[in-house]
């Protein structure tokens, strides 16, 4: 059943190659985005789990964190 459906698609064998290219491009975009991303955004994101309760603002450099001023 599925065989007939797939076989009826013209040039189906090229799809895997297209999909591989799509992924590699996608992954490249993610990498570039991560390299160029705004530091403020990252800081906001990594503090998301803490926003509900304590108004702590963590720095991401070492072992201590400071209270938000």
């Amino acid at each position: 059943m599925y065989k007939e459906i797939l076989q009826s698609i013209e040039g189906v064998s090229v799809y895997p190659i297209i999909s591989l290219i799509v992924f590699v491009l996608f992954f490249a975009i993610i990498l570039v985005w991560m390299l160029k991303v705004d530091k403020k955004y990252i800081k906001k994101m990594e503090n998301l789990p803490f926003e509900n309760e304590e108004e702590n603002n963590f720095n991401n450099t070492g072992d201590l964190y400071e209270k938000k001023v």
Partner: protein
Amino acid sequence: MQLEKFSYDNKIVRDFTIASLVFGVVGMLVGVLIATQLFAPELNFSIPFLTFGRIRPLHTNAVIFAFVGNAIFAGIYYSLPRLLKAPMFSTLLSRIHFWGWQLIIVAAAISLPLGLTTSKEYAELEWPIDIAITLIWVVFGINMIGTILKRREKHLYVAIWFFIATWVTVAVLHIVNSFEIPVSLFKSYSLYAGVQDALVQWWYGHNAVAFFLTTPYLGLMYYYLPKAANRPVYSYKLSIIHFWALIFLYIWAGPHHLLYSALPDWAQSLGTVFSIMLIAPSWGGMINGLLTLRGAWDRVREDPILKFMVVAVTAYGMSTFEGPMLSLKNVNAIAHFTDWIIAHVHIGALGWNGFLTAGMFYWLVPKIFKTELYSKKMANVHFWVGTLGIVFYASAMYWSGVAQSLMWKQFNDMGMLQYPNFLETTLQIIPMYIIRAFGGTLYLVGMLLMVYNLTKTMMAGKLAANEEAEAAPMHKDEKEKISHRWLEGKPIYFMVAALVVVLIGGVVEFVPTFLVKSNIPTIASVKPYTPLELQGRDIYIREACNSCHSQLVRPFRSETERYGEYSKAGEFVYDHPFLWGSKRTGPDLHREGGKYPNLWHYLHMENPRSMSPGSIMPPYPWLIENTLDISLTPNKINALRSIGVPYPEGYENQATDDLMKQAEAIALDLQKNGVPAEPDKEIIALIAYLQRLGTDIKANPVLESR
């Protein structure tokens, strides 16, 4: 800005937590029982419902879908609303999700011991339950996506990405792997046959591990580890890269479960390559988890929650390094079919899943009950008892896996197998089985300590059923400078993107195998099973003989010497479902046909130790007493014909007569040899099937490749 008031539903978190704990204990108890049966087979008490083959899937399903599944839901129902600053989309859907999931678990707990199984590992449940799982999964999806859509927080924290990917992928996996044609309410045949069925099954099996046991737990790790450690995750950037790499690579790696099988070579290599690449994102996740604790290691010494999490993340790192190593063909040649794999999965299950669950619950329960943990000391004891349990379990299984495999492959100076009797290699590792059961028991004791500790905590506190919260609404016109809005700001796009990434892997794996005929060379002499053999095969499935016996002779000299000609893809074209198995607790059965007389099988099934002294196979006396149910024979023939098995039109009318004729011949042969066999018993059908196994190519060994 106007703050809006709302509340978080903690009751659903508590319910899922309790369900996870209860089913966790049950699942592990069954685990200890089957571990014990492996050195004391009489512990099945000659009751069919307690036999290894039937309750081994009960153990795996209970631990994966009941213990881990409920823990995932508890974790998500707590973290998701808080990360989104919105209550769950619908309390009613939460309740339906909870009770629906528990009903499915109960249905599984009843149907599996009854022998109602599809035989596909981790997808054993029959088709009505499959449909129920689909419905409940959709309820969960609507509830989760609905919450995301009406959130008050613009950004989706990385944990939510993992949750979304989990939902999307598990839906795809479950549906694709569950295509089956029903014969009756409790019986169905897989739509796929042989090699294709194996490929779909292990694409599913592998990714069930990936997207039920790994991605949701990584999501939980990214929320609960920072919470418990009270510091943000080490690198948020790393978490994003590791997320996309992980979900893309994982989906391709399934064929590494089928190395040296009859699967085409290119598919095997694909699985290996992607498995090796998987080390990078997996270790990215582990490193991110461990480095979150940098500077806080002094607290790890005191805090049992952090201890559990550190060992969990470390176990994750260990098993995700071991996995790719096991995908190398030369390592796989030794490890596959042995206890090594059992050790590998239990590092993941007991270490990663079990310990992260424990860490999460020890943190979560006091939080929602607004109290302190009843006993920190007891949690510490749980940690040490559990860790010891894992060490005993894993080291025993590594030892027995490697030892047995080397014995299978050992030749003597004469060029003959050193241990031609399979049983010899089994008896060698019995002490390891005893140690394993001991390790499992220790782990279970730890679980019981946790249940006691958390129960006491719950009784000491009072559940904050509806926790008040407030947050500013999300502004649509809010100017957003950050460039990724196109993806992360729009959860539906995000979901589609995740789906596409996941489907790519599946398509690349399946399309060629399904299309290219030369991938499965057909063999002219391979014929469909006779009605009696078909019934025998269904008994084989019911008793889950494939839990302990493979039907796949790999192309090694040590295996062709022991079992006979190696297995060809074309031999399985009428196998709905495939029954290759994944573990050789007993010998391979693919060339069993004609190896022993009917009488041997009869006496062996009645009491294996009468034919093989010391055997750890349980006796199956009920096969000799039970009358074979032949009422479904025509339906079975019709169902199989409709999915491509070439039974001639109208054969269903003749099938019962053919079945009786073949049964009488076998019964007559048995009677001549002095056992009071009757032709209408189940044992006759099973013998017919066993005698047919792997004999087709002997009739005409010429491969006819089309």
